[in-house]
């Protein structure tokens, strides 16, 4: 093979210059060692003697992580070096746990192969890593997100309508959308679209929202026209609950919206208003929707219906109790009771419970710590962003992951009523893993200090033009008086 044409091509294309990423290398090695020890611990417990089992899935996963790292090094982008190892460790823990669970929890025909839980999760993890890496390397400007915010909003609403029309009901929630051979959970995509739209909208109207106010007694409310998006968001959240019966997604959407709104305006009154709206919405739903009432009653006293609707939550609490401080060890928890898993949905909604049983409080705290690290990196990327849109986008993408993890863990721990969302990067599920991959991929791209500068502030929007005319007029008036 001659290298000359290749070099020429590379130089012509993008001026690619490999750049070492020592921190990422070190952190990935630490994660790999931890996961290997975890795998041996799991295999040893299962075999009853020192064993490594069949390490092929873990080695494949670690190799994929290595390839991602290599791709970052070769393309030489100066992106964040902590996110990939953190995500890699979370995904690795997920791989361990999915291989530890009874494999027949999920069975799916993929081409000629009949795959079960462990291999399927490996497949989705690899796809998620691929999406993450491609986005982190390829995305060099944000105009495709920034300029089409209303198009994104329309796409989101269409998606919601599509679910309404064609959604499949699973466990009482209309979460799943099936188009031919493809099936997925649209709310996973919807949350990213929502963040993109909100970042664009709030970045544009930030000065107005922050500056103006409507006095109503002691309340300082935002000007009426700008209340509309808040009401619209509230409506969307309610619609998600009513249409999809998806309390978790609604909570997540509204939470991310409120956080971004506060970030953009730093007006506590907006947050207060938002929380008030949320409470009103919750009361309305409680009164009108039977499944919301059930969820609430389970939360108040799951033991009252321990053999019925409260079964899952009660079993989860038992699992937490069995785990204790140090846990039972990987592979030693959850003894199969008459062939079944005692905690239903332990691979999706209750994966945090399963991990807390086998790794104990100690391990569960480490996992929560990983999400906090994700939060720190994401918010730091937001703080260092070149402009408001990027800052809000980075903060929004971070919150989608961090808030979702908090919502499902809190539901598992009976701190809040249980809602069915996944634990990002850990729960089983293609849609969730891909969406999380997209989030972190975009975050990585945004973290690159060498990325293209944002476009200069463009032609002012209609509202801005109006405001400037107003200001100019006042100025002239003032001078005329003088």
């Amino acid at each position, binding site marked *: 093979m001659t290298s000359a044409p290749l070099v020429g091509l590379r130089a012509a294309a993008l001026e690619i210059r490999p750049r070492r990423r020592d921190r990422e290398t070190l952190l990935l090695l630490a994660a790999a060692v931890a996961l290997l020890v975890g795998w041996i611990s799991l295999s*040893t417990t299962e075999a009853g003697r020192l064993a490594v089992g069949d390490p092929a899935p873990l080695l494949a996963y670690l190799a994929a992580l290595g390839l991602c790292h290599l791709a970052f090094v070769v393309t030489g982008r100066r992106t964040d070096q902590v996110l990939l190892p953190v995500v890699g460790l979370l995904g690795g823990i997920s791989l361990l746990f999915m291989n530890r669970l009874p494999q027949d929890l999920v069975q799916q025909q993929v081409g000629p192969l009949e795959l079960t839980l462990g291999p399927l999760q490996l497949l989705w993890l690899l796809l998620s890593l691929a999406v993450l890496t491609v986005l982190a390397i390829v995305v060099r400007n944000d105009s495709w997100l920034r300029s089409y915010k209303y198009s994104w909003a329309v796409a989101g609403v269409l998606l919601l309508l599509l679910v309404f029309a064609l959604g499949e009901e699973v466990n009482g929630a209309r979460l799943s959308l099936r188009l031919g051979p493809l099936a997925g959970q649209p709310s996973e995509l919807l949350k990213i679209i929502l963040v993109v739209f909100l970042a664009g909208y709030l970045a544009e109207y930030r000065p107005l929202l922050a500056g103006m106010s409507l006095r109503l007694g002691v309340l300082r409310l935002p000007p009426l026209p700008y209340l509309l998006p808040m009401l619209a968001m509230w409506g969307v959240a309610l619609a998600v609950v009513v249409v999809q019966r998806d309390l978790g997604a609604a909570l997540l959407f509204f939470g991310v919206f409120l956080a971004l709104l506060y970030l953009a305006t730093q007006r506590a009154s907006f947050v207060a208003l938002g929380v008030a709206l949320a409470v009103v919405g919750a009361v309305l739903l409680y009164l009108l929707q039977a499944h919301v009432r059930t969820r609430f009653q389970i939360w108040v006293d799951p033991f009252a219906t321990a053999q019925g609707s409260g079964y899952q939550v009660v079993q989860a609490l038992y699992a937490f109790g069995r785990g204790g401080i140090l846990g039972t060890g990987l592979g030693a928890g959850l003894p199969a009771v008459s062939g079944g898993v005692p905690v239903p949905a332990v691979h999706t909604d209750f994966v945090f419970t399963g991990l807390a049983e086998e790794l104990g409080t100690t391990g569960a705290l*480490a996992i929560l710590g990983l999400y906090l690290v994700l939060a720190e990196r994401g918010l730091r990327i937001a703080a260092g962003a070149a402009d408001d849109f990027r800052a809000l986008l980075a903060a929004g993408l971070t919150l989608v992951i961090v808030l979702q993890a908090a919502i499902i863990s809190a539901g598992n721990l009976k701190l809040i009523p249980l809602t069915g969302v996944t634990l990002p990067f850990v729960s089983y599920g293609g849609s969730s893993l891909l969406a999380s991959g997209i989030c972190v991929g975009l975050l990585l791209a945004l973290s690159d200090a060498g990325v293209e500068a944002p476009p200069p502030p463009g032609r002012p929007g209609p509202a801005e033009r109006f405001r*400037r005319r107003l200001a100019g007029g006042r100025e002239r008036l003032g001078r005329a008086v003088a």
Partner: protein
Amino acid sequence: MDAFELLVWVLRLSFLGLLYLFLAYVVRTLWRDLRTSAAVADRALGRLMVIASPGGRPATGAALPLQAVNSLGRDINNTIPLDDAFASAFHARLTFRGRTWYLEDLASTNGTFLNGQPVAMPTPLGYGDEIQVGQVRFRLDRPA
């Protein structure tokens, strides 16, 4: 406790320990980042040299350190307040986005000029370029 149980214990605790070792590495990395970025934040992005200021505020010859967003105008709430009759209350904005400075006129009465040309749209500028707001003239310089 037999040898196997001991082995399982060691493996379990090692796994938990390694998780925390990883977190410790991460926290060390974050801590170092925090210290370097704090150092970066303290450094000004550029300086605005005052070439001429008939009103005396700012003083001619002063070097004003610049943040990412700087506003110029007669109102005292500007980051760079100007004592100049020909300047509007909120006259112009000088912002650093990505790697470039932009000058933007805020619908001022008498306009903002870059190297003698009136600024209609947000316009990129480089170090050494001259800015005029009212009667006050500046030169954009690299940070000290």
